[in-house]
C-alpha cells in the first residue's frame, strides 16, 4: 500500500519535485561554474546567492505538500474514511520526498564530484552525507510541519510565527542574561550541530508518529514547537562545556600524550615572550586601524578589570605539532575552600608562535617545553580585596593536539592540480601583483590548520610561513547544507607594495616558485590541570599603564 500511495502522490506532485531537483542541481553547479577564483567569473554566484536557501526551503515545501495531500489536521479529507493504514501513509510520504528529491539531488552531487575528478568513494560519501544533512534539516522538519498544519499557507504562517517568537525570546533572554550567551561554538560546533540534529530528528519522529497514530493536532503541535525551540536554543544557550565534554567522551579516555601543565614561577619575565600576533593567513588581515580600535577597547575594559599573569609551562610537546586550547578554565579558591572567582582564561602569551583570542590558545611547538603566561581578567573590586591574600589557583586546559600531514606542493603561478584532502586547486597572481592566490574547489572543506610557504626550490629560498588555524573536529569538514562544492583559498604575499619589506621569494623568482602546504589533523582531545596551592595575586599583576590598582 506504501507504493500505491506513493504513486498517487507522484502523479500529483512530480512537477514540484522536478522543479526542486533542478533548483538543487543549479545550486550544486553554481560554485564549479564560477571557476576556482572569486571575481568577475563569480557573477553567477553573486546573482544566485539565495539559491541554496531556496532549494533547502523547497525540499521542506515538497515534504509539507506531500503530507498535506492527505492532511492529518483537518476533518474533511476523504482519505480519513478509507481503509488505509496510517503507518503506510506516513512511510509513503517519507519515501516520496526521499525518492523524488533527496536521492536525485544526491545523484546530481555525486556526478558533480566525479566531474571534478574526485574519487568515486569520496564523491558518493560526500553526496550521501549532504543528502543525510538535508533529510535531517529539511525533509523531516518539513514532514513534521506538514503533519500539524492543513495547508501550505497555514504551514508558512506557522513557521514564520515560530521564528518571530524565537527571535523575541532570544532578544529577551539575551537582554536579561547578557550577550555572551550568543558567543557560539567555534570548536565544538559540529557536536552542537549533531546534538541539535538528534533533537530535531527525535522530535520530528515523535510528532509525526503521534499525529499519524492519534491525530491529536494540538498535542502534536506542542511537541513540534518544543522540538523547534529546543533545536534553536541548543545553538544559542547550550553551555560551551557540553560540546567539549561530548568531544572528550567520543575521543575516548583522556590521553594527554605526556603533555603536562605546570606552574613555572621562574619563567616569569622571560625576554623571549612575545606579544600575541594580531592574525595572519587566510582571511582579512588585522589592519593597523583595527588594531588601534582593539587596543582602545582593551584599554576601556582595563579600567574595570585587573590583569593577572600566571607563568605556566606546557611540557611534553612534540616539535612540529600544534596544541590548541579549546577552553581555558580558571578558579580562584580561598584557603578556607571558598570559590572566589570562576572564569575563562582570556589571553595567553607564549614565546613560540602564538595566536591568542577568545579564550583559545594555539601553540606551535618548536621544542618540548613551552612557557606561557596565562592572563586572567579579574574584576577590580575582587582583585583589590584578595590581592594580598594567599589563594589557590586551579587552571584547566582543554587541549587538542594536531599532527602534520606530508607536505603538498603546487606551482605558484597558473598552477592547476588536484591535491589530496583539498580537491582541485589553482594558483594565480592577484590583480595588485603582490600576492599569490591559491584557491581550491573542494568537496570536503577547508582543513582545520594549514601552514603555507612560498618557496623557490632551485634557489633554496623560502618566504616566512603563513599559518591558519580554524579548528573543526567533526568527522566531516563541510557545511554541506549550502553547496555541494565549496571554494577554499588563501592569499600568499610575495611583494610589499610600500617597499618596506623584502621577501626572499619575490617577483623575479615567482615564475618558478611553488607553494608548499602542510595540513594538520586533530589526533587527540584531552584535559590537563594544574593547581597552584598558594599564590598572592599582587605578585603576578603586570605593571600596566591602564591599571588603576597599585601593582604592589
Amino acid at each position, binding site marked *: 500500500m506504501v507504493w*500505491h500511495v506513493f504513486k*498517487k502522490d507522484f502523479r*500529483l506532485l512530480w512537477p514540484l519535485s522536478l522543479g526542486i531537483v533542478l533548483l538543487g542541481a543549479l545550486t550544486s553547479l553554481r560554485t564549479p561554474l564560477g571557476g576556482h577564483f572569486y571575481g568577475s567569473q563569480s557573477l553567477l554566484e553573486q546573482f544566485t546567492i539565495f539559491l541554496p536557501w531556496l532549494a533547502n526551503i523547497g525540499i521542506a515545501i515538497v515534504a509539507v505538500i506531500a503530507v498535506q495531500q492527505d*492532511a492529518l489536521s483537518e*476533518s*474533511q479529507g*476523504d482519505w*480519513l*474514511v478509507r*481503509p488505509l493504514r496510517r503507518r503506510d501513509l506516513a512511510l509513503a510520504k517519507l519515501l516520496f520526498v526521499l525518492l523524488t528529491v533527496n536521492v536525485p539531488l544526491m545523484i546530481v552531487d555525486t556526478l558533480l564530484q566525479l566531474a571534478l575528478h574526485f574519487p568515486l568513494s569520496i564523491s558518493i560519501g560526500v553526496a550521501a552525507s549532504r543528502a543525510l544533512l538535508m533529510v535531517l534539516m529539511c525533509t523531516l522538519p518539513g514532514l513534521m510541519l506538514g503533519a500539524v498544519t492543513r495547508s501550505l499557507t497555514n504551514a508558512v504562517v506557522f513557521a514564520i510565527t515560530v521564528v518571530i517568537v524565537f527571535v523575541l525570546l532570544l532578544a529577551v533572554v539575551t537582554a536579561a542574561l547578557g550577550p555572551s550567551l550568543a558567543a557560539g561554538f567555534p570548536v565544538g560546533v559540529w557536536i552542537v550541530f549533531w546534538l541539535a540534529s538528534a533533537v530535531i530528528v527525535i522530535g520530528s519522529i515523535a510528532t509525526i508518529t503521534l499525529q499519524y497514530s492519534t491525530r491529536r493536532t494540538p498535542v502534536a503541535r506542542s511537541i513540534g514547537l518544543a522540538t523547534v525551540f529546543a533545536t534553536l536554543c541548543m545553538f544559542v544557550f547550550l553551555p560551551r562545556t557540553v560540546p567539549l565534554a561530548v568531544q572528550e567522551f567520543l575521543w575516548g579516555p583522556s590521553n594527554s600524550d605526556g603533555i603536562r601543565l605546570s606552574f613555572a614561577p621562574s619563567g616569569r619575565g622571560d625576554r623571549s615572550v612575545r606579544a600575541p600576533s594580531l592574525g595572519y593567513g587566510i582571511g582579512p588581515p588585522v589592519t593597523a586601524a583595527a588594531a588601534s580600535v582593539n587596543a582602545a577597547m582593551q584599554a576601556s575594559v582595563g579600567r574595570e578589570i585587573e590583569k593577572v599573569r600566571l607563568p605556566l609551562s606546557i611540557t611534553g610537546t612534540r616539535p612540529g605539532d600544534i596544541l590548541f586550547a579549546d577552553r581555558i578554565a580558571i578558579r580562584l579558591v580561598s584557603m578556607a575552600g571558598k570559590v572566589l572567582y570562576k572564569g575563562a582564561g582570556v589571553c595567553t602569551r607564549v614565546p613560540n608562535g602564538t595566536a591568542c583570542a577568545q579564550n583559545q590558545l594555539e601553540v606551535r611547538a618548536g621544542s618540548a617545553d613551552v612557557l606561557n603566561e596565562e592572563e586572567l581578567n579579574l574584576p577590580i573590586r575582587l582583585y583589590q580585596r584578595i590581592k594580598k591574600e594567599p589563594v589557590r589557583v586551579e587552571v584547566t586546559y582543554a587541549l587538542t593536539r594536531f599532527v602534520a600531514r606530508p607536505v603538498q606542493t603546487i606551482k605558484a603561478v597558473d598552477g592547476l592540480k588536484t591535491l589530496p584532502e583539498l580537491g582541485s586547486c589553482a594558483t594565480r597572481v592577484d590583480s595588485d601583483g603582490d600576492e599569490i592566490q591559491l584557491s581550491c574547489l573542494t568537496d570536503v572543506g577547508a582543513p582545520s590548520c594549514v601552514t603555507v610557504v612560498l618557496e623557490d626550490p632551485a634557489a633554496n629560498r623560502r618566504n616566512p610561513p603563513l599559518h591558519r588555524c580554524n579548528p573543526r573536529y567533526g568527522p566531516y569538514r563541510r557545511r554541506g547544507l549550502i553547496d555541494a562544492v565549496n571554494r577554499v583559498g588563501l592569499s600568499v604575499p610575495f611583494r610589499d607594495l610600500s617597499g618596506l619589506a623584502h621577501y626572499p621569494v619575490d617577483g623575479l623568482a615567482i615564475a618558478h616558485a611553488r607553494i608548499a602546504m602542510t595540513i594538520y589533523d586533530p589526533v587527540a582531545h584531552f584535559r590537563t590541570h594544574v593547581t597552584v596551592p598558594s599564590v598572592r595575586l599582587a605578585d603576578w599583576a603586570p605593571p600596566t599603564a591602564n591599571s588603576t590598582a597599585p601593582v604592589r
Partner: protein
Amino acid sequence: MIIEANGLCKAYGRNDALRGLNLSVGEGSALALIGANGAGKTTTIKILMNLLAPSAGTASVLGIDSRRLSRQEFAQIGYVSENQRIPARLSVFEYLAYLRPLYATWDRDLERSILTELRLPPDRKIGELSHGMRMKMALACALPFRPRLLVLDEPFSGLDPLVRDEFLEKVLEHAGAMTVLISTHELADIDGVATDVAFIDDGRLLFQESMGVLTGRLRRVEVLLDREASAPRETPTSWLEVRAVGNVLSFVETHFSEEELGARIAAIVPRVLKVDVEPMPLRAIFTALARNAQRKAG
C-alpha cells in the same frame, strides 16, 4: 445496533455543539438525522466517523468504539459529505483506480455502471467538476465496494432537483440490506428514503422514531363547533398546537387512534358538529414536534 451513541458531547471552545446526544441505528434501517443548520448533525457524523474526537460520551460503529475504527471497519463504510476533500488534480478515473485496491470487495462492474448511470466523465479532473458532479463522484466512490453502512452528510446541499433525484435514485437502488445514515435539514429529501428519523436541536436529540409510526400517530384534527370556539383550559398531553379560530378548534393529535379520537374530543369539547382528520406532511409533523420539544426544553 450498527451505530450507537451515548451522551455524546462536543465543545468548540466555549460553544457546545453537542450536549449529551444519544442515538441508535439498527442494521438495515435508514435513519434520517434531521435538524436545522448548526443543530449538530455534521458534528455527530464526524464523531461517528472518527473525524472528530468527542469531548465526552462514547459512540460505536459496527460494534467498534468510534475512536478505534480501523481499516476493517472503514472497508465496510461508505461516506459522502458535502465538504469531502478529494484530490482535485486527479481525474475521476484516476481516483477510482486509486481507491480500488483499498477494498477487497470492490466491484468493477458496479463501478462502471454507476459511472455510466450518473453520467460522470472519467477523464475529467475532479477539480473541474461542478458541485453536483462532485457529489455524484463522491457517491460513485462510496458504493462500488457494497458498504454495510452508508453515511451521507448533507448530500443534497446545493444540488438541483434533477441531480438530487439522480443521487437519491442511485442510493435507493443500491440500498438493499445496507444501513443508511443520512443527515439533512431538508425534510423533502428523506421522503421515501428514511425508515427512521431522529431530530436534533441545539446539540440534543429531541426524538427518534420509526417513520411509519411517526406518520401514523400524528394527525391534524379540526373540530367544528355550534358556537364560537375557544381553547380548552386543560388539553390532553397528546394534543399540540391547539388553536381556536371562529367556530373551529384545531390541534395536532400525536397519539392518533381512529376508535378513541371521537370520545376523547367529546369529553373535552361539547356540542361538536363535525370532526375532520387529515394525515400530516412530514414538514408539518416536524414543525409541530420540534416546537413542542423546544417549548419543553424551555
